[in-house]
């Protein structure tokens, strides 16, 4: 196995272009596990840790989070509550110190905890190659299937970008263990009271991250009615309906981590709670 360690993004992209079979390595918290289990035996590995550009993190009018930003840094710098809560649920302190947003996007698992948040925020995944122009994809375009992304062999994920959406956001994750657990189901709800936008996305309940559009529309109606700028308490019937719409949008399966029936059920529970929390927060 060959290992390279470029220092600039240009160098890294050149190398990816010249040797498209190269496997990028960020924190290694997915890749090294795959290697350990013998599921992957890459011929060439490119360590990205030294590529400065990938560590950039700005949170002004628009958030730009470099692919190499770790969860620990995300937690300190990013203010979107759903993203903070998602980052906080990832692994253990050791994993959060090493694991990156780019790695979560690279692995592209339906259980990746930041992915529903990026979807609900309408974030853009920024990818680049040495030859081509920069491409910007939303999460639906990026994620093609379980562990299948739209990344071309010569491309690297450079960053994710989104507009900060205020404090009416929630991320919830159900798992059998109280920490360091892969989501049996997770859910992000972003209510942007300024832009009057609702984003709802769920993970681990389908082959990709799923948006619940009917639920988003329904919630928009609720906020419209209650007034976007005011906190409110959704009626039990409204919460019930919202939960049911999310459950309907889920397409879960039975696997070792949980049953489809439970996933559908807990999605509704999480949706109701997320709605109550975001409605209460202004």
């Amino acid at each position: 196995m060959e290992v390279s360690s470029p220092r600039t993004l240009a160098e890294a992209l050149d190398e990816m272009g010249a040797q498209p079979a190269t496997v990028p390595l960020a924190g290694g918290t997915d890749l090294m596990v795959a290697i350990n289990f013998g599921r992957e035996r890459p011929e060439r590995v490119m360590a990205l840790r030294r590529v400065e550009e990938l560590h950039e993190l700005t949170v002004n009018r628009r958030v730009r989070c470099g692919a190499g930003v770790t969860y620990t840094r995300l937690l300190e710098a990013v203010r979107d509550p759903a993203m903070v809560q998602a980052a906080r649920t990832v692994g253990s302190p050791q994993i959060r110190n090493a694991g990156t947003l780019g790695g979560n996007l690279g692995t592209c698992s339906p259980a990746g905890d930041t992915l529903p948040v990026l979807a609900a925020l309408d974030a853009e995944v920024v990818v680049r190659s040495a030859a081509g122009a920069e491409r910007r994809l939303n999460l639906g375009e990026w994620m093609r299937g379980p562990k299948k992304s739209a990344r071309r062999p010569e491309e690297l994920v450079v960053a994710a970008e989104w507009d900060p959406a205020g404090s009416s956001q929630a991320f919830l994750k159900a798992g059998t263990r109280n920490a360091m657990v892969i989501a049996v189901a997770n859910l992000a709800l972003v209510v942007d009271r300024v832009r009057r936008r609702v984003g709802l996305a769920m993970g681990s309940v389908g082959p990709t991250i799923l948006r619940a559009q009917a639920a988003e529309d329904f919630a928009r109606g609720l906020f419209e009615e209650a007034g976007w700028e005011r906190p409110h308490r959704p009626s039990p019937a409204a919460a019930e309906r919202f939960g049911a719409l999310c459950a309907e949008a889920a397409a879960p399966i039975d696997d070792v981590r949980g049953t489809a029936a439970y996933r559908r059920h807990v999605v509704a529970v999480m949706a109701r709670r997320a709605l109550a929390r975001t409605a209460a927060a202004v």
Partner: protein
Amino acid sequence: MPRPDAPAKVRGAFDFASDLRAEGMLYGRTVRSPHPHAVVRRIDTAAAAALPGVRAVLTAADVPGKPFYGLDKVRDQPVLVGVGETVRYAGEAIAVVAADHPEQARAAAAAVAVDYEVLEPLTDPVQALAQGSSLRNLVIRRGNPEAVAEVVVKGFYEVGQQDQAPLGPEAGLAIPDGEGGVDLWIATQALHVDLRQVADALALPPERCRLRLAGVGGAFGAREDLSMQIHGCLLALRTGRPVKMWYGRDESFVGHVHRHPAWMWYEHGADREGNLVYVRATIVLDGGAYASSSHAVVANAAIFGCGPYRVPNVLMWCGAARTNHVPNGAMRGFGAVQSCFAHESQMDRLAAAVGISPLEIRLRNAMRSGDRLITGQVVSGAAPVADLIRRCAELPLPPPAEGRMALPGGAGNLAEAADISRGEGWALGYKNIAYSEGSDDYATARVRLERRNGHAVALVKTAAAEVGQGLVTVCQQIARTELGVEEVELEPADTLIGDAGSSSASRQTWMTGGAVREAARLVAEEVLKRAGPPGRGLAGGQVVDDEGAPLAPLALLLDEPIEREFEHHHRQTGKLDEDGQGDAHVSFMFVAQRAVVDVDPEAGLARVAQVATVQDVGLAINPLQVHGQIEGAVAQGVGLATMEEIQTREGLIRNASFTDYLLPTAVDMPEIVSELVEEAEPDAPYGAKGVGEPPLIASPAAICAAMRAASGRELCRIPVRPEELSGVSETKPPRELIPGQPPA
């Protein structure tokens, strides 16, 4: 009292078996069957042998001695499954390879071509028993098995398959001695038990195989059976080079036995006051493909299957099915954990039916010294069960959960305090100490007292395995106490001394501790003989008189070192007769527990807030270590109650990694409040009972009871899964059986 191995372990400097290396060492790897049931038609090793760096590829044909190993009297497990022979579980070893580099060994193992004729696996243990595929059936009849009662409760209970999950996977290093013999450095629970099987397979006299204890990274029963011992030695002897083998985590899941999963049908009858009249029960255990220790696990599940209560009339049927699953065998609690979940759930049902509290029903029926087990055996030693219950009830309750991480769902950010309800549950557990049913249980120790730099030093040698439990500290303490010296050194454990038996069954403090005490007493006797009157004892490095006044430094009497060896046998036990009656056990240890669990009933998630535990220990030789054992055992109980389960489908393990076999983290650990009851056990050295197992016997049952109380759901299966705790689904018995009757 510092543990001799603690500083290195804390600093990360301790050599575990997987850290071993030797000059010129090769790496061994095992070729395993992907099928749970198949006949091996052909094995082609040529391609593997031709790969770079490959030094040996061995199959069953290369086993010089006895081709079977196992713990039972009938050794039934093939060292390697040969051509024409049958594979009985997925993961069974077919061939072993040795190469210069681990990657080469991996490639070679993958290149061994095996043709299988795939057969239908037998995976339903109830059906297996019904068709006579059994490792042991045991019936216990006591009083009137057909007794009737005013209050009757019935229930079905299920326990999933738990992994011992020691952090250190199986590992060892075999070094040929150049004269046809071999030294094996191995992480094991019982050096001599391994030795007998290894020497037989290698066709070597036992003295030419020397087994030496390597650093053991946890055991919990997983190291009772052999893993790489014979394979590593075969490769080392064939290549003439040291061979190291260690399993990855995925391999470890098929590389050791697990806790028997259980299906249990119970019926309890009582009078209107809640006094037990009868228990009838059928317990089905899945023994997997080979015997391992199923024989003894069946006995324990059945004998302790009614709990520490007075039960006049019993009909108990317990069997271990032989199926095409990875063999099940020893794990901390050893059969008693499974049936405890059933009998304690039943006691709660009975309490509800009678209209008294869970505490009261247990107090009314609690076993006392002089009572009889359901096998008719009189409990001759301490049995302070009622006392344990009362003291446990007095322990403080935990405050309400505060902060996100303390709520069910924890880091998942799922619950608010308003979503939570709290429940309390009770369980009693008990179990035997040491080997049973007539086996000659003994341990050997050698104690040497010598002079070094002018002062007396004691050296203690045994073959007993330190597996993390702290036996090393206990042996040192005993030698210090008996010889009155400060400096005690433990010599390495190996087979150059006599057998110590296994570090299991909560027995080593009693057995090896007892052997050290007796050997030390023989040494002390000799010292006093040399000192002559009025020397009466040893203390503070001095020979002392009747009043404890110093007479002479011990070291002055050691011109010649003194060395004594002692073989300590415990009181002979008996066999069970055809009604399951007999004095099969030597002694019993009891525990009472109260669990407090917070449940999010809507989401189906739980967090154990507190486990209060009061344990009957005889005497706590090292209280800190006893509390350590309690905390570790409760952690495993939390795991079994809430998340730990090996999931198998059609004979294949689906979650052979710590990604999907979930173990409790620090966040999942409850507060533990514990108390010890010290009522000296008459037969035991210093009156000390074993301590390692009881907290794990009761805690799964207590935790599940608390989850029932909090959620109002039946919950007849552990681990309790979110879909059951939330009411999305419910476990049903695989079929209807009449409690007490075998599956037909």
